[in-house]
């Protein structure tokens, strides 16, 4: 069957039919195990359960309509108001309850959608933040590693090359190398600082925007443990 194994069964609009009960198929489980895959079967059972609940509700509602109409007809025959046969005060209340229930379910769905959206946005922000942090970390590791390698090279060459009696020329060369290394380290430090400050500015900017947008925008959500009356 084509509709198998999707969440379509849980939608309000798509109903399970007796035909589908006769034609439903399930994938076999992986090699080495006998029988069906468990999850699709469980999903199907959930769908059957939901359908049953719906049928029971419809049946009750119809039964009540029949009872009410029967009472009214009997009352009508006994000389009551014939216009009251079809519409009574009780009907109006049940009707109102149904309308309010539908409205509430619609409102709940809007809130749930908004919440799912907000959850997605936060999650994306979190993942993006993790990426930025990882990238920054890698960048800083690279800079450190590079600086470290160069410093070690410099130290090794200083140990190997410099013999105790240094000529002026050699001393000059050593000082030149030292100056070069200092400059190098300064340059690296400046790079690192600029990069870090850039990242921090980005984060502050984001925080500021977030604070501003949260102030303008009230939202709704469901609570985890406020127990009904």
């Amino acid at each position: 069957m084509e509709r198998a194994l999707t969440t379509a069964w849980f939608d309000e609009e798509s109903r399970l039919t007796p035909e589908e009960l006769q034609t439903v198929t399930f994938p076999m489980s992986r090699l080495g195990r006998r029988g069906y895959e468990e999850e699709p079967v469980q999903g199907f059972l959930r769908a059957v359960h939901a359908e049953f609940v719906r049928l029971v509700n419809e049946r009750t509602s119809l039964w009540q309509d029949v009872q009410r109409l029967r009472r009214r007809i009997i009352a009508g025959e006994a000389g009551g108001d014939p216009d009251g046969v079809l519409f009574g005060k009780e009907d109006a209340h049940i009707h109102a309850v149904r309308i309010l229930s539908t409205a509430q379910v619609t409102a709940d769905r809007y809130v749930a959608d908004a919440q799912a959206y907000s959850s997605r946005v936060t999650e994306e922000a979190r993942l993006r933040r993790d990426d930025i942090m990882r990238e920054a970390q890698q960048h800083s590791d690279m800079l450190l590693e590079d600086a470290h390698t160069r410093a070690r090279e410099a130290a090794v060459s200083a140990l190997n090359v410099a013999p105790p009696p240094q000529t002026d020329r050699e001393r000059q060369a050593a000082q030149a190398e030292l100056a070069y290394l200092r400059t190098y380290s300064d340059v690296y430090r400046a790079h690192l600082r600029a990069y870090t400050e850039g990242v921090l500015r980005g984060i502050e900017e984001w925080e500021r925007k977030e604070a501003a947008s949260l102030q303008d925008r009230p939202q709704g959500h469901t609570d985890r443990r406020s127990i009904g009356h």
Partner: protein
Amino acid sequence: MPRSLNWWRRRRKARLLDVVRLRESFAHVATHGDELPLFFYSDLFIKHPEVRELFPVSMAAQRGHLVDALVKIVSQVDSVNDLTAFLQGLGRDHRKFGAVAEHYDAVGASLLATLEHFSGSAWTPELAADWKAAYELVGSVMTAAARADEELRPAWWRGTVVAYERRAFDVSVLFVRPEPRMDYLPGQSVAIESPSRPKLWRYYSMANAPRRDGLLEFHIRLIDGGAVSMALTSAAIADTELRLGPPVGALTLSDPVSGRDLLLIAGSTGLAPLKAILDQVAALEQPPRVHLFFGARTADGLYDLDSLEKMAAQYQWLTITPAVSAGSRFVGETGSLPDVVARHGDWSTRDAYLAGPTEMVQEAVARLASAGMAQDQIHIEDFGWSEP
């Protein structure tokens, strides 16, 4: 005068209240699923529109809570003591939502209308009388507990956010001044409602023992899409006024203290109640030895390590071991918190207090128990009646 428990017992004994019949009736209407609470709230709001404002915009979670409570009441209807404790808690808990005695009659009428509606031909005068009697008892226990609670404390406290600190990307620390002053035991929690998310309450633990200036410290972790945590971790929360429910929870030191040394295991913002307990221990004349394990996913998540290390330097009875998840960059312990704790030796002679993500806590509790720690030495938060 509400009917007493003795009345209930007498009536049960005299078989005037048919428990089997109540259960069968409930099992029958319960097959209607979400339609049942949906009908109930719609009926209630149509008859008493003023009650609607006590509830949040979305009622989806609320309907689940109602059914859960009904299931619990019906299943425990013949073990009166358990049920009474549950209902008393429920009654006290509902004060902060603004529930008053008149609401109970309205709720009872709508509950009966709902049961009648879904019972169909099974609804008889006898069944109606049983349900009415059962609800009257439930309502009287709840309202009596709420009334007794009124003598002791307010329904809720005003709490001004006097300081806000963002400690990590997703963790903020709030300092709140409650009015009036709030008395509580270190390790307890309160439900918090933020002004931008009306009628949504979430539980947070105080991270300090009661102080002379009355300030409460809260550690808030941002949950993706979590409406209340998003509001509370945002910088916009500074200077706003929150509502705080009464302190609840039993994650507290035994009184008098057991004399055993302590093992504290905190995952992420589960640190808060354990830090309050540390505060309390520090004030004892002869503090026991305390070993605190503080774990997070990354080093960034060890948001309160500075202040903990300061405490450890100050008190020689205190040892702190921070740890982060395996694969994270950290100079120190890495791995799952229960693993790290187990690596540090035998804890079976200590009292353990645990708080944090449910899975971590369950895993750690199982490990401690299998390593020989007795059940009564292991303390975790148990909200009991208000468990979601």
